[in-house]
Every structure is written in structure tokens, then in C-alpha cells.
């Protein structure tokens, strides 16, 4: 019989989650991924699907308090880059909230609330 050596543990294999109420690690990990130096520099040949948030004003916190609102009440004054058809190019802001939530599941965070600003969207997260 052939003996198969055990596979050495991968550094990415996660140990069991620590459920003890030990001290909380405050210092954050900060990841910034830039796809262009400015919004104007984005290649404007992508389909702009509009705002994924403007049609997604959920009230999920159970108290009737909207968890998604537009900065100063307007999403029409966005000043991001301009696409080839002259419309503001929203780039990553076209990604639906549910898609970001799926990514955040991997990270182990949940969305508490969202602000839709003129230039960017802000997601306040749990953890």
C-alpha cells in the first residue's frame, strides 16, 4: 500500500473561530485598491448601470430608520468621471450592494448602514 504523506497545512486554512470573549483588536487592516488615479482617468467604455443604492433604500434595522440615505438629498449631482456618452461614469459604484455584501461575508463583516455621497458610497460595517 502506498503511504500518502499528510498535506502540510496551508497558511490560508483557517483555524476554528475564536468565540471566547477575549480582548478586541482595535488596530485595523486597511486595504486600498485603486483602478485609476482619478475617476476621470477611468476608461469610459463601460456600461453605466446607474446607482445600485438609489433603488435599494432598505429599512433593515427594525426601527424604521432608513439604513441608506443620500448625502444632502441628491444623487443626481455626482461628479465622477464622464463616460463616452457624456454621462457620469460611476465605475465601481454600479456594483450592487448585495455583491459587496457577499465579498464582506468572506471578510467576516456585515453592513450596518450605507451613505450615498456625491463622489463615493460609504458602508458602515459591523465588527
Amino acid at each position, binding site marked *: 500500500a502506498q503511504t500518502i504523506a499528510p498535506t502540510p497545512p496551508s*497558511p*490560508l486554512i*483557517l*483555524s476554528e*473561530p475564536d468565540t471566547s470573549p*477575549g*480582548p*478586541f*483588536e*482595535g*488596530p*485595523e*487592516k*486597511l*486595504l*486600498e*485598491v*485603486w*483602478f*485609476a*488615479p*482619478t*475617476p476621470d*482617468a*477611468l*476608461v469610459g467604455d*463601460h456600461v453605466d448601470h446607474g446607482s445600485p443604492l438609489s433603488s435599494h433604500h432598505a429599512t433593515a*434595522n427594525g*426601527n424604521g430608520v432608513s*439604513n441608506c440615505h443620500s*448625502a*444632502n438629498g*441628491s444623487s443626481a*449631482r455626482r*461628479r465622477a468621471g464622464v463616460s463616452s456618452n457624456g454621462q457620469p461614469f460611476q*465605475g*465601481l*459604484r*454600479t*456594483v450592487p450592494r448585495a*455583491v*459587496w455584501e457577499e*465579498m*464582506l461575508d*468572506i*471578510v*467576516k*463583516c456585515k453592513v450596518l*448602514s450605507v*451613505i450615498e*455621497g*456625491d*463622489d*463615493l*458610497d*460609504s*458602508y*458602515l*460595517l459591523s*465588527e
Partner: protein
Amino acid sequence: SSLFVAPHVVILKTCGTTLNLLGLNRILEIAREYCGFSSVYRCFYSRKSFFFPERQQGPHRDWTEEVKFLDNVFGNAGSAYTVGPINRDNWLLYITGANPVALVPAGPERPLALPPPCTGPPDQTLEILMSHLTPAGAAPFFLPELPAGSPPESRSGHELGTDISAQLGIDTLFPKSETTLDSFGFEPCGYSANAVVGSGLNCNKGDGGYFTIHVTPEDGWSYASFECNVPLPLRANDPSGRPDMPSLIRRVVDIFQPNRLTITLFVSTGEDSPAAAAPATKVIGADLFDGAFTRKDRIIYEFEGYDLLFACFERR
């Protein structure tokens, strides 16, 4: 924790034992799938040294593992740095190089598009990492003790966060007319806030930005962070109502009352004006806090396209 999404940037800042880097590949997939982005212009990953590294999971268990993870993604196009004293408040940074990194071969229908060089307004990110908060500085971030027999706390997390923000003046760090603040108070303690700034009618393109605050006030590992990329005026009492950088730093430190703090300031230099960052990095001098703090370290890195200032202070 916070996520910011601009048309061209994703910023993910997470605390605790979150698996921040494990989200990176999915972010790249999303950017490609929804926007056709096949290359990354820049990537920054940074963190202060952990208080409890043994509690971290996955690649975050060790800095070398985090670097290995990022090198695997970016094909060794990045550089990793340990900044500051390694026995105290060191800070860790991974940054990809000056050239955009092609992630995967683009399909024939979508040729690889490399972004043009930076020509826009300078990008400036200020981060203040504060620890060892005084009892007075930490107190507002605990739920108040109620008298025996009182009904339990009835405010929601958002209502509690709003009250804390008003009590401490967090909601007036920038003019209210151009700020939308979203804050949350956690039970039994802790606080997070995100704000978008610069959505007012009088703002010019590129004048906007965000700030974000996270607080863990428990004695023994108390910590607060403030991060901001809103363009700031060079002088105090600017007509815009925005604070200049020294004033903003002092206000933030007055709120959280740390005994130790680290300031990092990234300023893009641009190809045509490499000295543009000089005024910003010079404002964080030894006398920033009028003698209340001693500056322990001041380190400047000149990366291609960015200057980084790192400074540590301790309360006298």
C-alpha cells in the same frame, strides 16, 4: 469597520479578527466583472502592529504571511515596509509599484487598458492611530450605567452613535452643511462613524472625501483611529470652514485623549510637481501639540508618486 466605494477605488478598513485580505481577490473579480477593470493602478495595504497577533486568522497571523499573500496576487510587483520602532508602535505597509499591475490576461474583447499617469488633484490621506486613551477620553464610548430598576437602553445603535457624535463634536469636525455623518454606538461599548464630506453645492470637483472613526475604549487595549482624505486648507480660519491639518489633528486628539499616537500622512506628488507634498508633510512638527506631547519619531518616505510621513507622539 468601513467600506468606501468610489468609481475608481475600493477602501476596506476592518478591525478585530476580520479576514480583510481574503476579500481582495473577490474585489478584483467584482471590478473586472462589473467594470471591466483588468489592471490595478495602485494597491496599499497597511496596519499598525496588532495588540493580540495570536488571535488573528488566515494570512493576518503574521506580516510575512500577509506580504506573501499580496505578492501572490500582484506577482511580486509590490514592496513591503516596516516603518517605525519595532518594539513600540511600528506600522506596516505594502504598496504596489509605480506601474499598473495587470492581474490576468484580458480577453480579446477587452484589451488590457493601463490607466494614464496621475493628472488630477493631489490625493492626501491622513490617519491618526491612537492608543492608551485616558479614562475621560474612553468614557463617552461606554453605554452609561443606568440606575437599578431602570428600563434597559432603548436607543438604537445609530441613535446612540448620533448622540455620541454630537456630544463630542465629531459632527462638527467639518462644516455640517457639507457633511453627512453615519455613526453607530455598540453595546456595551465601542463606536464607529463614517462621513462623506464635500457634497455641498459650493464644492469643486475633487474637493470631496470621507472621514472614518473607530473606537475600542476598553481599558488595557483602548484604541481609536481617525482617517480622512478630505482636502484641507493650508491655513487656519479658511473661508471654506474646513480646518487646516494641524487644527484637525489637535481637535481629534482632544476628543479621544490618547497617551500615545501615530500619525501617517500619504500625499501624492504627481509627475509634474514632486514638491507638492512638502507643505503637507511639514505641518506635523515637533511642536504640533504645544508641548503636551513629545514627538518620538518622524520618518519620511519618498515613494514614486507618493510621499509618506510617519510620526509617533507620547503624552508628556
